[in-house]
């Protein structure tokens, strides 16, 4: 059961991050605008827009198909990113800034309460992927 959950988390979370990264890669200029619109670190918007999609794709791919120790690291990297995304979205919502989320490139919706809920669920999934390790067969009691 644990292995099934672990696989589902890896495929779901990893796949989602690969898709999100690819969608952001399609228009880096528009993604930089989305980041700048959060009004947190607008001067770093271009740098983040250049780096973030590749980090997401790499983390997603490693989580799906990487060797076991690196899979946990990929899940940890995704958890870190989700913390940042959640804080940024909550901050925008708290300041009443009505902006596009930028989570999935041009396909993103506005930042609202559902964005926060989704981010928290994904953060929980990433933490679970770090914590949950498939039980090695040799360790299974007879």
């Amino acid at each position, binding site marked *: 059961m644990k292995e099934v959950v672990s696989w589902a988390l890896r495929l779901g979370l990893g796949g989602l991050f690969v898709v999100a990264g690819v969608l952001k*890669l399609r*228009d*880096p*200029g*528009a*993604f*930089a*605008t*989305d980041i*700048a*619109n959060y*009004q947190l670190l*607008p*001067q770093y*918007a*271009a*740098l983040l*827009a*250049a*780096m*973030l*999609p*590749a*980090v*997401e*794709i*790499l*983390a997603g791919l*490693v989580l799906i198909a990487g060797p076991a*120790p*690196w899979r*946990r*690291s*990929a899940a*940890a*990297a995704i958890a*870190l990113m989700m913390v940042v995304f959640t804080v940024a979205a909550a901050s925008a919502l708290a*300041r*009443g*800034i*009505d*902006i*596009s989320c930028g989570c999935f490139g*041009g396909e993103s919706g506005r930042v609202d309460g559902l964005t926060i809920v989704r981010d928290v669920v994904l953060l929980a999934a990433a933490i679970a992927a*770090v914590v949950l390790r498939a039980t090695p067969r040799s360790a299974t009691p007879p």
Partner: protein
Amino acid sequence: MLPLAARTAVLLVIGAAVGLAANAVRSDGVSLRGYSPPVSCEGPKGGHPVEVLPPDRAVRLCGDPGVLVADARPPRRFAEGHVAGAVHLPCAAPQAEASTVVSRLTAKNTLIVYGDTTEEARPVAEELRRRIGRPDVKVVVLDGGFPAWNQAGLACSSGPCPECTEHK
């Protein structure tokens, strides 16, 4: 074997380096040095563009109780001078403020939005049109923005917006 934190850091650094390298070789990559944050938000995608109204036609609507004028420029620019009777509503205005403008449109049939340029006001106008969601309210952009209005010698005033929360 590297500990979890070190492997995570390695992954992040490799991903960031790959991203920067890919951005550098892309013809449509974002410019890291010449990038300046936008002064206005990107408007919603899709839908037909809002109508652009020349100042001489817009001035005929002045005094019409069914018309509301919104200034989409930064607060400093608004305070320096704005169309007489305009409310201040930059793109980054708090949602509550934008909602207040939308609620004030109950008895209106036209919203004129302007910026320093036509393009600055367009995304704000498109966003407001989406939020208003009323086909009986016409949302238009002032062609040429405030400079065109001012140059035409049309009614202006200066000072902060008394009805806007960010000016208090």
